[in-house]
């Protein structure tokens, strides 16, 4: 059955148009069709969170969304959050606090953390752990990830205060 449909997405501010089968998973669209390889495939079963992207303002696991469902959506991946010459505060903070070791989970971790801090700029430690519970890391033991997110919250709040 070849039933390709016309898909239009905005990914990191750029419009993308192509034909795809509706069953294509969004993570495959991003990585294989659009060459946006920041979101990773860890488990491909909705558990690990390495494929986390922001879809219409929600953190979602892009291995569990058909491209057809995302048709018309606005998507942000780690590439849209920061780049090597212009790191996001979370990226700098993960680096400084050793919030990563192998780095495989980091794109999903930071994409989720960015959305989390947007929704809760003054979290408690429990809030951070609960809000990040959909992202698995097999290296760090999470301690330094939590530290990095806390430090970022302080930094972003201080910057906001300074601006006001």
């Amino acid at each position, binding site marked *: 059955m070849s039933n390709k449909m016309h898909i239009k997405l905005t990914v990191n501010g750029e419009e993308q148009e192509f034909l795809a089968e509706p*069953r294509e998973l969004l993570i495959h669209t991003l990585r294989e069709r659009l060459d946006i390889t920041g979101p990773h495939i860890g488990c491909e079963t*909705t558990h690990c969170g390495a494929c986390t992207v922001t879809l219409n303002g*929600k953190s*979602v696991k892009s291995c569990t969304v*058909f491209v057809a469902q995302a048709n018309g959506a606005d998507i942000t991946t780690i590439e849209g959050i920061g780049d090597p010459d212009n790191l996001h505060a979370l990226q700098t903070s993960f680096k400084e606090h050793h919030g990563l070791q192998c780095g495989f989970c980091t794109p999903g971790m930071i994409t989720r953390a960015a959305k989390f801090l947007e929704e809760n700029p003054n979290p408690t430690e429990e809030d951070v752990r609960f809000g990040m519970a959909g992202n698995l890391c097999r290296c760090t033991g999470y301690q330094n990830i939590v530290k990095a997110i806390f430090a970022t919250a302080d930094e972003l709040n201080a910057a906001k205060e300074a601006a006001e």
Partner: protein
Amino acid sequence: MIPAAFEYYRPTDMDGVLAILTEHGDDARVLAGGHSLIPMMKLRMAEVPHLIDLQDVSGLTGITVEGGTIRLGAMTTQSEIIASVALTEAAPILREASLQIADPQVRYMGTIGGNVANGDPGNDMPGLMQCLDATFHLIGPDGPRYVAARDFYEAAYMTDREDDEVLTAVSFDQPVGGYAYEKQKRKIGDYATAAAAVQIVKEGGKCTSASIAMTNLSDTPIYSEEAGAALVGTVVDDAAMDAAVAAMLGDIDPTEDNRGPIEFKRHVASLILRRAIARAWSRA
């Protein structure tokens, strides 16, 4: 992890949905958040030649609290339930249970309609809806139909919903008294080893009514009328809790799986129910 091919539809009204369901019968399924159905399709345990995405269908969203009745549109997500101040004031058990479902990413997508209509005994909302004596709103080619949550579940993935019907909303009377949703799971994202939904009313120091339902301890959620009855007229002391737990154990029928053998599940169910009753009573 690539599902079989399917035709995709994204109608904008319920007539459009029903027309496709009528034409294709059980070859068609509706998709809400997709976080139960898509994993099954990826594993090829579910084959859906005609997939109807409900995201653009009008009239399926929104939480209303009005005149003592609470209504949630089927496409209301768990994260919307958690964020709703009005709902949390009126029925805090919804938020308490929703926070224990899966993880943040899944809660942005997972809906109450999908959770109750799918018929998975591991889902948390069916037991909760039975505890609250909720009504499920269905619509089919012959018009709307209303089914009590306590009559809806027949077996795992088998419900009273016909293939050409869609669940559009759930509604229930605003609960009174103390509440608790208590869940034991192996890790974040897992289904319950055992979970209990409890609502208790206390008057003059005694329990005047109690409603108890259990999750993932049979092939359907279990509303245990006798467990609730065991608490009525008591001061909810140890003896009353023992009686309620014994009644509940008489109603459940767990099976052995990777969450443990039957005896373990009965043990966990007892502990979880005891905790849920104690917490609900302390809030009553």
